[in-house]
């Protein structure tokens, strides 16, 4: 997820990871993501967890629809997207260290159980060789990566399709 309201080239962004004691049901996941998005200074975040597949992938029942009731549409800041994982951890890039404590408080209010909260480097910022292979150079003279928004780097696996995996959250009026 990318928050296009919080772009800053001057401050030094840091990254934190929220690791709850339990994997989250969709209602709590929705509340958590909305709470994180409301914090001023969030640039982008990655959600991870075990997947909820559409169909049985292997075994004698391969191809049978799973119809998992928790694979459903959730709403984050007015944007609907399908949550196809059981949310296990959230990695968030924030503008600077001053946002860290506000974010922790926001998460603390939503999660009904303990969580780990740690700073580290989780989402890469520089393009890799694979990114260059995928996106190419801007031009023959400009060898920077051919991406309009470099915040997209590191959000998904380079070989994955971006469609349905990246959600751009537009700025809202009250901000």
């Amino acid at each position, binding site marked *: 997820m990318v928050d296009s309201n919080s772009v800053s080239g001057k401050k030094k962004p840091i990254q934190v990871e929220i690791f*709850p*004691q*339990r*994997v*989250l*049901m969709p209602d*709590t996941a929705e509340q958590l993501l909305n709470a994180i998005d409301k914090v001023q200074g969030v640039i982008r975040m990655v959600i991870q967890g*075990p*997947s*909820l*597949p559409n169909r*049985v*992938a*292997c*075994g*004698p*029942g391969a191809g*049978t629809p*799973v*119809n*998992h*009731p*928790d694979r459903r549409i959730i709403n984050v800041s007015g944007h609907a997207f399908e949550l196809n994982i*059981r949310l*296990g951890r959230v990695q968030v890039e924030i503008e600077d260290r001053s946002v860290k404590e506000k974010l922790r408080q926001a998460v603390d209010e939503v999660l*009904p*159980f303990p969580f780990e909260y740690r700073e580290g480097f989780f989402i890469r910022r520089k393009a890799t060789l694979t990114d260059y292979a995928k996106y190419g150079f801007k031009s023959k003279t400009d060898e920077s990566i051919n991406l309009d928004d470099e915040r997209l780097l590191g959000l998904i696996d380079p070989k994955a399709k971006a469609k349905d995996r990246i959600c751009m959250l537009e700025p809202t009026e009250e901000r």
Partner: protein
Amino acid sequence: MAYTPQYYPGSTSVAENRRKHMSNNVEKLREVSDEDVTAMLGHRAPGTDYPSTHPPLAEMGEPDCPVREIVTPTPGTAAGDRVRYVQWADSMYNAPSTPYWRSYHAAINHRGVDPGTLSGRAVVEARERDMELIAKEQIETEMTCPGLAGLRGCTVHGHSCRLQEDGVMFDMLDRRRLEGDSIVQDKDQVGVPIDRKVNMGKPMSSDEANKRTTFYRVGNVAFRDDAEVIEWTQRIWELRSVYGYQPK
């Protein structure tokens, strides 16, 4: 004096539970009908005959063999049943059985079984009606908490995942789920829907699971808490590594 097997050393609750599983001295906690077990296993439709791979042994005219005279065949073997499996995944978060203990339970207490143990699951193969007996025994007793263990023929992922918010082990194929205060299963082992909702009963509370588990785990009963287990583990390690496991 009659010999009493000493299955496992140790004085902690985990050691005691391990002895219970191995000796089949387990408490029955719930009732699941034979038809429901058959439906959940998914090898044949409930109520149908057992398919066979060979005629009943009594009709086959077996060769003259002293071993065959000594060993009574299991009911499944005598009838010529197919070999089928039951497979379990047990959560690392204090599920009652560890994969090894399901295998020990089957291998020690039942004949004609082929248990297989992997890091996160335990499979037992046997003649179909013998296997159903073992599966029913494990489903109905304290060897299983429906919230922390599941029948999973494939896609076993979940045993090492954190529990869900509702305290149930994650299952990506949604074979069973918490409905109200009971676990309900409406798919077979491999994720194919069945024609019924099987009520597996209430999942164990966290305290009860801690009491009945066979998992050593920091935060409950750690492996290092039991001096006798440590002593025997080290002794067996020493015997098998230094002497090639040939105690004389």
